């Protein structure tokens, strides 16, 4: 939508089971300046499979950034984060935790598991859009992202 968009869109894996939030997030990124390719995994197991290109994700592209919700079915977001950070092929990918929780325990636990940042989902839609725009602004324009981990 903007002229200085990069040739290759940035790959984002959105780990989110709530379709409402998926919609909100997609919409928000769509309105952003950076070209993004949003892939969605609806549960924890799918997230791991996607990252390891297992099963139906054999052709999946390695994401530049992971946006992770903590409350997901089958495999909890914290477990997913731990697995990512213990995998030498994946551990350098930044993980932005975006969750409805604002509990101290969750915040501490996530950072201990080397989450790149922890963001509570705001209640108001306007604020939610602001958050997404901030993520885009910081992680996709200001921050330099690694192309590979090994």
């Amino acid at each position, binding site marked *: 939508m903007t002229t200085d968009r990069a040739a290759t869109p940035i790959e984002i894996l959105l780990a989110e089971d709530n379709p*409402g939030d998926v919609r*909100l997030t997609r919409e928000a990124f769509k309105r952003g300046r950076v070209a993004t390719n949003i892939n969605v995994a609806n549960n924890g197991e799918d997230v791991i499979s996607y990252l390891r290109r297992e099963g139906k994700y054999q052709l999946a592209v390695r994401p530049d950034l992971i946006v992770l919700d903590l*409350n997901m079915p089958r495999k909890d977001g914290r477990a997913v984060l731990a697995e990512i950070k213990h995998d030498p092929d994946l551990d350098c990918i930044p993980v932005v935790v975006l969750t*409805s*929780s604002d509990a101290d325990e969750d915040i501490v636990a996530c950072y201990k598991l080397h989450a790149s940042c922890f963001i509570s989902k705001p*209640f*108001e*839609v306007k604020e939610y859009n602001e958050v997404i725009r901030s993520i885009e602004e910081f992680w996709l324009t200001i921050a330099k992202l690694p192309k590979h981990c090994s």
Partner: protein
Amino acid sequence: MRTLRDTPIRKKLIAIVVATLAVAILLAGFGIMILDGILFRTRMVRDFSALTKIVADLNTATLSFDDPQAARETLMALKARPHVVQTCLFRTDGTELAQYSREVPARACSAAGPTEEISAGDDVTLRRPVMLDGRQVGTVLLTYDRTEVSERRLLFGAVVLGTFTLASLLAFLLTAKLRGSIELPISNLAHTAAIVAETRNYQVRAEKVSDDELGLLTGAFNEMLSRIQLSDRELRRAAEELEARVAERTRELETELAERRRAEEALNRQAAELARSNADLQQFAYVASHDLQEPLRMVFSYMNLIAEQYSGKLDAEADEFIGYAVDGARRMRQLITDLLEYSRVGSRDQVWQPTHCDKVLQDVRANLSLTLEESRTVLTSSTLPVILAEPAQVTQLFQNLIANGIKFRGSEPPRIHVTATREGEWWKFSVADNGIGIDPAHHQRIFIIFQRLHDRTSYAGTGIGLAICNKIVNRLGGRIWVESEAGGGATFYFTIPAMNSATGSGPGEFSDIYGRRNDQETE
């Protein structure tokens, strides 16, 4: 003196008798001796004066007829008086007519001199004129010694000593006789007392020998023994009774103890159950809050999206309905947030540390700076103590109470005063405001979660603030209450246990802790 005190009574008696005798005899003896001495001297003077006169009388003729031979013969008769030392006869012209002397050589003697003089040693010399028919025919001189006095004194002393010795001997014999009547009863008593003291056998009795004072004493002693025996028996019985009672009480106590132990076990079980259920409840509240948040946010978000995107495309009624739904969702969200916060008090392992309340109040002032400014609140405080607590919770406590005071303000700008006073082992804090006050009927209710007194159009809020305060104070071991009248302002009180060395900590020591905590709390 000690030795005399420790000697047996018999010896004391003898000593007393002998001493009495000695004093009596010696006093009497010496008294008589002195009296006799005086009398004897007087008599001696009289005797020798008479003797001199006789000698003079016998010699009137010898002097008249100047007959030394006859005179000498006369004087020789004085040989019969051994105490006469010397006698001389003088003519009227002072020349010596005749002389008799016991001693050889004789002493010189002279007619001239006093009528009576004490000469060499203890001798006395008398001079008398020899008178015949009213005329002096010569002078006679007679010297006698007074050895008789000392001889007599010696004799007297010997008699006194002899009497004393004899009397002592008799007294000793008499005392020995009396021993039976005085010493025997006493030694009987002493012996009996010794047996009683040694064996604690109160059945023995001292033999009563006489009916005198000692007899009375023995009787009294025996009487005393009887009483002791009686009270001893009673004491023994009482002791046995006491023992029995103690044994009984011990059994009772053991039963009681067993019961108490059972009760305690039951209590512990209950406490454990309670802790478990409490933990479950907290976990439930937490999970529920989280899990409720997400769908609620969906409802809210998409209601908002509808309101945004279909604005003007629906009729006014639809807009109103959407408004109610959004408001309900927002309030529900607030309730969940509050519930979450409430459940968080004590849900985590918190570290209690010395917390300087002055610093806490400073932080609260900073946290509420905007509100304080807007409401033109005057917040004052006295010096506040250091307490042992979780600083963030204390901050929340003060903040909630102060915010409450501001929220329920009247028409005037709020004035809030915070104080703390020491009451024994406790600090009593007060937060007083000049707000609308609280009807005493509601003083209990306001500390219960979600209890509100006012409709939400006048005062916003979920009614969680004071419940959280109550929970924080309770967890610190204190209690919280309010004193107020409707329309007359309100004063919230709460008590916190005092630290032993509260005054020892300086305010700056924990500033970094406060700072860190506060940053976190004020997110």
